[in-house]
């Protein structure tokens, strides 16, 4: 749970105009070639909160996963949740959205809420092999750094119960990570921390000023 009462602006944000070190670094980067960084991880890895923190820090970022909107569209059309046989069409549409996002970005730093190789993990979870389109896109559209968020939970209940469904969450996470290795990436793993701490870690990794040290 996070509080958003003190951070009302969570919309799409461009670099701030203030004179902070981070803003200056982002402005300088904006003039240079495109740098694309992926934030990914399984369910309950704290991804949504980190994306929120990135946006609040004024760093350009894709706000929502394109897959969510597409899923809802398919669900409305089908009148039910997607089944295995629906995944192929859905995956291709999600892939197209990721490619569009990738291609639209021409210069400067931008973070991505999941990336093209996430498709390997999700397809694999449903027992599907990667499509030729995914293989090709993974080869053509390369991100600069992949940040994988470690889960924020042990997926065990305090009274020792381990739910079968929770095991699936672990599996999704592991398959996503494997997907990036299969696509020939070396992900950077971001340990459990709150969103601010994780963003500092990521910025330090990218040689960007840490947002937590910015003047408020």
């Amino acid at each position: 749970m996070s509080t958003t009462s003190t951070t009302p602006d969570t919309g799409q944000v461009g670099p701030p105009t203030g004179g902070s070190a981070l803003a200056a670094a982002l402005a300088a980067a904006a003039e240079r070639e495109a740098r694309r960084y992926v934030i990914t991880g399984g369910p309950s890895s704290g991804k949504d909160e980190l994306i929120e923190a990135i946006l609040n820090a004024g760093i350009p970022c894709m706000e929502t996963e394109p897959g969510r909107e597409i899923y809802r569209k398919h669900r409305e059309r089908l009148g039910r949740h997607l089944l295995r046989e629906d995944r192929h069409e859905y995956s291709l549409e999600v892939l197209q959205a990721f490619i569009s996002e990738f291609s639209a970005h021409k210069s400067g730093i931008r973070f991505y809420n999941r990336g093209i190789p996430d498709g390997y993990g999700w397809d694999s979870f449903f027992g599907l092999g990667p499509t030729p389109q995914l293989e090709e896109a993974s080869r053509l559209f390369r991100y600069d750094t992949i940040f994988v968020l470690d889960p924020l939970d042990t997926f065990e209940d305090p009274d020792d119960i381990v739910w079968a469904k929770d095991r699936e969450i672990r599996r999704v996470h592991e398959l996503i990570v494997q997907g990036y290795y299969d696509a020939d990436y070396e992900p950077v793993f971001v340990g459990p921390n709150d969103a601010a701490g994780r963003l500092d870690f990521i910025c330090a990794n990218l040689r960007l000023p840490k947002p937590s040290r910015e003047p408020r």
Partner: protein
Amino acid sequence: MTATRAATTEPTALSTPALLTSPNSVLANALLRSIDVLRPRIHASRPERIEFVVGTQINGAPHLGTNLVQTAAFLLAKIARREFSIDTRVRFGALDNAPHEVVLDPETHTAYQQTYYHALGTDGIAALIKRYYREFFDSLSEATGTDYIVETYTAQQAGPGFRAEFLRSLERLEEIRWWMAPSHGVVHVRLPCPDCGWAEKRGDRTRLVCLDEDGATFTAACLDHGRYETHVDPAAPDPYLDLATLYRNLVKERALGRNTEVLHVMMKGGDWAFGSQLVDGALGALLTPPGQMPVRIFTPQVLAHTGAKLSKSLLREHGRGVLPADVEPWMLDTTTWPGSTDNYVDALAWLVGELLGDPKHFFRSFTVKELGRLMNAHPADLAARPRAYEMGIYKRYFDLIATGAKTTEIRVNDSSRAKLIVGSLIRFRCRDEEVRTRVTRLNRYPSFDAMFDHESPTSVNPTATREEQLANIRQIYPPEREAVGVVAIGIELVDPPA
């Protein structure tokens, strides 16, 4: 004279050397009796009542460790009543917010859960409590002369005290969140969807969007009904507030600590000693006054021979190989005890009484095999012993009862006397002597004066005048204890002197 040497459960250090050997420990070394662990707080707060609070997940049949904590609560209530002359009872918290089912959102694979309460409803929860605990508690209550109440988590979280405390904790969320979640500082709060009752298991998309004097507003997401907003008002019982374990304990202990008339003693399995450090850190961060810090008693952990805590999931994961072959089925599911509930309770109460008899025995852990050995070491005639209320008594009065000279016993009319009826047996104890009597009549009065207006002083004590007796009895019971009323208990010896 029929006073007999009791098979002792009295707190004497040398009482059971052959049965049990325990090394000393820092806590045990500081105590002469196990109950003394409560004495500093009793002296400081002078409560009108002590409640021993024991919470249990109701998501399956209890194992030995669960029943051991509960039995310790009843026995300590009995001992504390005698030791501190303060009324006591047991408060059983049925944790009906345990997850009944978990599903994954097909879209995001975020886990959603439905609590037992939401799955079974009030009647279903009542049936579960009845199935696993009611008979056991009734028997324990009778065996220890201790009253008990059952409170579900659902009822607890709906109360204004719990909600107000939760809202206060939100004001200092920044200070407590690392105590509640030391690895990442992200606290889980579950606010089930108002349409279907399912909630995000880990509160991934739950956000606190507004906190002011009217309460707290959250947004969350449901797998079927999409995003929703919900408002926690201190005066309203809805929405359902399902807190993760540490946070739930923080709010519960803070809320109970505000009651200055009742001292709540948290009974917890020994493994909680580690987790309580985090709750204490959060209590400190909330600036909890010293007099409102929780009092906790940690009961012996029940361990497999590897040292792992006895748990059903341990068995499920690794099979029975983690336990010695001679671990009996009832230790894992106590409802399969090969005998009556009373028989089980008598054996367990005897065992826990032995452990409580020496702090060295109580404040330690036991392997399940060792506990099984101890359970089977109970006196051979235990099952044949009739249930009797126990009352401690000074030697000079004990001797009068044992000789048949004293035929009326006077007590304050607290909860432990409520179930006394004509024909009940009372076992009077003085150190390691005991004498059994039968209740012949019961008369209740508003005060000791009123009582002596109707009862013969010589039947109470043939060696003292009414005035002397009044002075003596008021040495024992202060005015606030007399204020609950007085009961005169007519008694006769079960085995009169030849």
